[in-house]
């Protein structure tokens, strides 16, 4: 029936629809604006300013032979897994800087890696279009590749992966424009999420008690919030001017931050359904590759393509510190589970722990 309609009066129908969609979009903005009674910096006026920060590199992890692309913390607060362009995935005890496990993937550009909540496995993937789970072993001589489990299958590169609340499910995002939820044991796809018009580059799972949503960011400049049960996009935000490289939830789960190639980080409030802050500076012109919040949500750490890390005051919108040390792009950045430090991985082959 729809096809017939289009065939009979194609241009009329399309024009009417286009006008209708534009009107609705304007209406949406009006509805959003109606409830916008205060700006973030006004709320921040009552909060005291931050003191001076002394953040230094406390550990430098050397061992990757090429660009470090991704890293993740273990729940034990001291171990991390990192992956690199040369196909190596390494598990470190960052506190002692010892390497504990190493896996060589059959592909280069391992852009995604994640530590399982139990601490007993890691997941990784990249140009092989797959996400594989490697159970870790107490026997250091064991070849981990032997027990590898291929879980996710996409039609293009894997950009990010994340375990849900257990080792049994993995959420992935891909260059093919989709995200998907997989059952690890069977490799079955439990849910797929369509809606991005271009590569999806990042995702983050909501920390809320119900834990049923996640946010993804893509090259279409959109950040979408998805319902894991139904596969529907429940909210979306399109205010960035370029690719969104990283999204991260605010610790309470009511907001999230994004970092983009347009050199800004932005904060989106989910309950008010709008962008509430832009973290930018004239002197910062290179894209943000990854962002993460400190434990209280007061600080936002951003790793940038100009080799620096900028620390932002989330409430006041100002930059409180800039950290130097990496000799190439900072490609990944995550705060440790107990908030005592954050780890940055870079194209200079190293990872640094800052505290």
């Amino acid at each position, binding site marked *: 029936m729809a096809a017939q309609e289009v065939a009979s009066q194609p241009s009329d129908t399309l024009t009417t629809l286009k006008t209708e969609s534009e009107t609705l979009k304007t209406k949406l903005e009006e509805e959003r604006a109606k409830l916008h*009674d205060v700006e973030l910096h006004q709320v921040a006026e009552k909060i005291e300013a931050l003191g001076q920060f002394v953040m230094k590199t406390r550990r430098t992890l050397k061992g990757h032979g090429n660009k470090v692309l991704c890293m993740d913390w273990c729940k034990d607060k001291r171990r991390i897994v990192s992956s690199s362009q040369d196909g190596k995935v390494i598990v470190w005890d960052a506190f002692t800087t010892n390497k504990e496990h190493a896996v060589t993937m059959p592909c280069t550009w391992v852009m995604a890696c994640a530590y399982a909540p139990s601490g007993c496995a890691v997941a990784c993937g990249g140009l092989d279009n797959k996400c594989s789970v490697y159970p870790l072993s107490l026997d250091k001589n064991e070849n981990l590749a032997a027990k590898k489990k291929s879980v996710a299958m996409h039609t293009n*590169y894997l950009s990010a992966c994340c375990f849900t*609340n257990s080792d049994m499910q993995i959420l992935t995002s891909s260059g093919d424009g989709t995200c998907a939820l997989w059952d690890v044991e069977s490799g079955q796809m439990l849910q797929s999420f369509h809606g991005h018009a271009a590569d999806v580059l990042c995702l983050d799972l909501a920390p809320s008690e119900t834990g049923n949503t996640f946010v993804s960011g893509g090259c279409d400049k959109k950040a979408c919030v998805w319902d894991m049960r139904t596969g529907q996009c429940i909210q979306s935000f399109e205010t960035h001017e370029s690719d969104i490289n990283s999204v991260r939830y605010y*610790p309470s789960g009511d907001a999230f931050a994004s970092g983009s190639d347009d050199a800004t980080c932005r904060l989106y*409030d989910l309950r008010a*359904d709008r962008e509430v802050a832009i973290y930018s500076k004239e002197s910062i012109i290179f894209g943000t590759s990854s962002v993460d919040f400190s434990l209280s949500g007061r600080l936002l750490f951003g790793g940038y393509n100009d080799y620096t890390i900028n620390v932002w005051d989330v409430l006041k919108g100002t930059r409180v510190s800039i950290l130097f040390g990496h000799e190439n792009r900072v490609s990944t950045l995550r705060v440790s589970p107990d908030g005592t430090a954050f780890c940055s991985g870079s194209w200079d082959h190293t990872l640094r722990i800052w505290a």
Partner: protein
Amino acid sequence: MTIRSDRDHGQRYRPRMSCLKKLEATVVQMQDPSTGVKGTDQKLNVTIIPHVITGQDIVAWITKNMNIDSDEAQAFGTMLVAFGYIYPLQDHKKLVLRPDGSLYRFQTPYFWPVQKWKAEDTDYAIYLAKRNIRKKGVLDAYEQEEYNKLHKWMNHKWDFIVMQAKEQYHAGKARQKADRVVFDCQERAYWIVHRPPPQTHSAMDYGLDRHIDPNAEEKKTYDYYRRIIIYTQQAVMRSRVKSSVSLGALAKYITTFKNHDPFLVPCLPSNPWQTDDDSYWELNTPDVEIPTKMRVERWSFSFYELLNDPRGRADFKIFLKKEFSGENLAFWEAAEELKWGTAASMSEKAEHIFKTFLAPGAPRWINIDGRTMGLTVKGLEHPHRYVLDAAQTHIFMLMKKDTFYRYLKSPVYKEMQKKAISPAPHNFSEAQLQQNMRNRRPSIDPIITWQKEQEEKAKAEAASGPVDIKKLMASKLDRK
């Protein structure tokens, strides 16, 4: 020299390198004759190089004009050098900005990254061949290697390459010596940026190309607009909260957790990453017997915080046991396991949950309203991952709004608050810190911790069978 129209600043699909446009604007300002960086003439052997600038002048200009610290200015300057807008005259292979008397020059726009993107292998071959013609053996080892490689791959066009190289060489000879020296420097700088020497990287490396072209116009069909209309209609209908309310909540969260954020308030006894002493982790293990005061305080912030902390959840379980209402939490945990468990185990788990918590006369029957119970039981006929959602949310809300607050006022919690320890801050001397650094303790492998946890869990389940309400009530009646 034309800018390729199909390549936008070196990235096929969109201006990922749009930052270069902004860099260029700054470079143009820096070269302004009156307000720019002051250059001088430098003598190099017998020639005079014009418009030479020093590293410290560049940093000073950036500091002043961009209103930033000299550290940041130096980092910004390094970007200018890395992308080839400014090139060093000394130590030309290392593309960093040194904030001292080191000499630099502005690169001619002809060699700016955006103009001649992407640096072609043919051009590189011509460049290397030309230098070879000028003087044999002048190429570096890595350049010689590249030259040999290119000769192999481009063997079919090698005559063309040699001819071009000779032409450029002769054209160069026709120039004035000073101009020739300057041009050679510029060209060399260009190739250092685009063909980095070993152990260095090229700033032009932007990683992988994106797969989908977001600039490609999605076909504006009926379906396309229909999707947008449906989505936007739903979005308009969605309930929103006033900014003052939601932003206030964000600020409140920050204030509540401020003292618990190690970046804002030092954690006690000390941050393991800073002092190399891991006592902080030892005192906060998931199964520690006496938790710290900070940790116990955090349990009171929200029900989620209490449940999320294994130690808090354990304490809550003790309270529930005393109240004989452990079935609510047990049900919630079982529902979580169903939701996040393997697909294969689902129907088995669903059945177990039904028998234990929902069936009439079940040993750990949970008290939910009739409607929810009806929906859940019906759903369990064809169990799926989210079949217990309604019941689970109901129970969770019950615990959150009622049980949680009673827990906080209970003797169980109050006693925990009293028992909780407050570690004194470490005060290490420099020598002690050095020693700590040498003696960093390794920790138990998470695999072992996990195995232990699983064993404990199995033991606990076997030991504490479900409380049989009927028997219990019967025994109470008997006593009466």
